[in-house]
């Protein structure tokens, strides 16, 4: 592989977006979780829920802050490295991403502040309302991101004027059929990610025999939510696969590592795709299952990669493994949550330390699934940046040199290494220390400055009370 501005820009985009998406995925889920547990507290009056809420609120604030910091970088990537894309599709992608920014800012300027700082100043009902609005706001934020990406996957509702894509039907662009499947898929992924983290944190406390009451609430709610949501997610995920089959058959063939057209088509469960020789090594296949998965009958014809000219084919390795890892993570969540709830029903949940360990170690399953799912979608879309309309290699900023992108990419790696290790360290510290008494006021904290919540007792500016 020769290093040119295109491949380096792709690596850079993959790098910065991967380190960004982790936080929005986590915060969308946490916002929904906070609204849920606050609602439960409002109904039951259980003070334990309040302690759980206050604890996760701090984690939420810091994650939100990390999401904002890494998100600022994203606002500039399209222009710095993908200048041709920005000019050609700016009339469509610009307003969609603009709406995402407006949604996030509106949120910060309104209910987010109430949620972080207004507990004492508003009524419990209004506080709960603010929590719901923050949760809705994070969901709407993701709506615009998914609308933008869905348009890149399956472009609809546009005309081409002077080589530029001009919107002709915003309804189709914003609420197209693909978006209506992929947005719920992402929302559920975010909910599952956070629910697994909540359950894992609870399991961690029970294993360490600290914060037992709070840990139990987290474990029960987390496992319960995952158990309910995962079957829905598997179904929506299947619908997502159907859109790929219909609109992006080459991506579908790559995910299946299906090189030849087949009737009936077999399903490759696992293999090592050998791209150079267009075959699978060490393949374990099930006859006819491929037809069943794609078309719902045992005898349908399914297209292989041979049906597409080489220059229109996506790489196979990443979509193939990305998809399988994502599904594998989903199956782990299914197993952990359903078995955990069965243990709970039998009254054996806390006695089974090996299960608590398993739950604790499952905390990254959601993150891994989100990342590998996105890799499948994005790499599978190649060689197009806008499917069928604009090739990735034609979208890069023409003035960029290999040296420029080498420099920026190494810079991002370096800066993110520092920022990330400290950000994650503070989140880890928050999680390890667990729920404490009521949080102290943080000097000068506002809704625009959520990172201030990383420390509870000491001042951000060094002038506060000693811990």
């Amino acid at each position: 592989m020769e290093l040119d501005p295109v491949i380096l820009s792709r690596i850079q985009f993959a790098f910065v977006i991967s380190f960004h998406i982790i936080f929005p995925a986590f915060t969308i889920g946490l916002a929904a979780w906070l609204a849920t547990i606050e609602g439960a507290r409002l109904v039951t009056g259980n003070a334990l829920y309040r302690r759980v809420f206050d604890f996760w609120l701090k984690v939420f604030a810091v994650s939100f802050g990390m999401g904002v910091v890494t998100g600022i970088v994203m606002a500039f990537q399209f222009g710095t490295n993908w200048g041709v894309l920005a000019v050609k599709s700016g009339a469509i992608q610009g307003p969609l991403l603009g709406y995402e920014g407006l949604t996030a800012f509106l949120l910060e300027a309104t209910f987010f502040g109430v949620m972080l700082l207004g507990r004492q100043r508003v009524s419990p009902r209004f506080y709960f309302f603010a929590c719901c609005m923050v949760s809705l706001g994070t969901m709407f934020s993701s709506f615009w991101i998914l609308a933008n990406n869905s348009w890149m996957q399956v472009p609809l509702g546009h005309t081409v004027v002077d080589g530029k894509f001009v919107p002709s039907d915003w309804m189709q662009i914003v609420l197209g059929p693909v978006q209506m499947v992929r947005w719920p898929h992402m929302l559920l992924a975010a909910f599952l990610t956070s629910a697994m983290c909540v359950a894992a944190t609870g399991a961690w406390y029970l294993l360490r025999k600290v914060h037992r009451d709070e840990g139990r609430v987290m474990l029960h709610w987390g496992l319960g939510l995952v158990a309910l949501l995962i079957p829905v997610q598997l179904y929506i995920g299947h619908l997502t696969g159907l859109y790929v089959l219909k609109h992006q058959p080459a991506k579908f063939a790559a995910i299946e590592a299906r090189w030849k057209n087949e009737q009936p088509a077999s399903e490759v469960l696992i293999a090592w795709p050998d791209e150079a020789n267009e075959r699978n090594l060490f393949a374990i296949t099930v006859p006819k299952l491929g037809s069943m998965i794609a078309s719902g009958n045992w005898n349908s014809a399914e297209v292989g990669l041979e049906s597409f000219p080489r220059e229109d084919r996506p790489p196979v390795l990443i979509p193939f493994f990305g998809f399988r890892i994502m599904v594998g993570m989903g199956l782990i969540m299914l197993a952990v949550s359903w078995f955990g709830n069965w243990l709970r029903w039998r009254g054996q949940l806390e006695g089974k330390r090996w299960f608590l360990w398993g739950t604790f170690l499952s905390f990254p399953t959601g993150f891994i699934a989100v990342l590998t799912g996105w890799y499948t979608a994005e790499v599978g879309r190649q060689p197009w940046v806008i499917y069928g309309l604009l090739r990735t290699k034609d979208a890069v900023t023409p003035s960029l040199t290999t040296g420029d992108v080498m420099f920026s990419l190494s810079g991002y790696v370096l800066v993110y290494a520092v920022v990330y290790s400290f950000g994650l360290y503070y989140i880890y510290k928050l999680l390890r220390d667990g729920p404490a008494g009521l949080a102290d006021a943080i000097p000068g904290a506002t809704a625009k400055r959520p990172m201030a919540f990383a420390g509870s007792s000491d001042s951000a500016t060094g002038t506060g009370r000693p811990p």
Partner: protein
Amino acid sequence: MNGPPPSDLALFWAGVIALAIMVYVILDGFDLGVGILFGTASDDAQRATMMDTIAPFWDGNETWLVIVGAGLFATFPAVYAVFMGAFYIPVLLLLFGLIFRGVAFEFRGRSQGMRWLWDWGFFLGSVVVAFVQGAAVGAMMRGIAVHDGQFAGSSFDWLHPFALLTGIGLIFGYALLGAGWIVVKSDGAMRDWAYARISWLAGIVFVIIALAFVVVLGVDAGAVGQGKLGERPWGWAFPLLGVLALAAAVAGARLRRDLLPFACTVLFFLCAFMTLGVMFWPYMVPYALTVGSAAAPDVSLQFLFYGGVVVLPVIALYTVGVYWVFRGKVRGGYG
């Protein structure tokens, strides 16, 4: 060549972006300036007070930069693409500087052993951000090479001696704004410290402007002379007023009127901004892309309009609200 005339919606969005840049420069300008001065403070208590004067504001101030970036992509994608290409390295340094500043701000209070690192990060981050912004303005004044709607130069075109001068100028300009802000928000020894710096910071800013003027007239007339200031003699009112505002800032410091130096420096920045406006209009990318030729189609501008007219006033109100809640002098931190 002035391109097609801009539509009303294009004018509206160009106005929004110009306003957002102006608000950004003044708001983030003073907290960047405090960060620059932070590096020159000697004792820890003083540094802590300086941090306190900007603690509730700095993060929100950067909101306006993102509005500029995202707004450009949405409403003037051609401008967005050319700027990000032409200023690839400065934008990168800007982002790194902002990230380091932000992280340093939140983390310095929590680590004793590493505090020196965060202090340096906060100071250097502020200096780098100020420098690349100033250098970008200088490079814009010299004009940006555009071919076929894309930046047509190389990644170091911006690094011209004239741009170095404007970059250094903005470091001192922001420091002046920061000193004025510290005077507004503090009293006692801290305020005296800031007062003492206003006169010579204003002096350096004046010298750099004079130098830049000489460079333009003497050496670099070809590039910078493409600007429209020559055809618009009335536009010279702005730089003249700007210099008067600079002098008034010094006078305010001598008279020890706490609000005057900051207010006059803000006026100075407004004048500088208006000067650039007179120089560039109708170009958005000088001297290649006009507002009319770079705007997204009206159907896109209209679509975003509905969101913009709802959300932007809310953000503005929120900004005013935060400044109101944290008004007055800092005394022993906000608690």
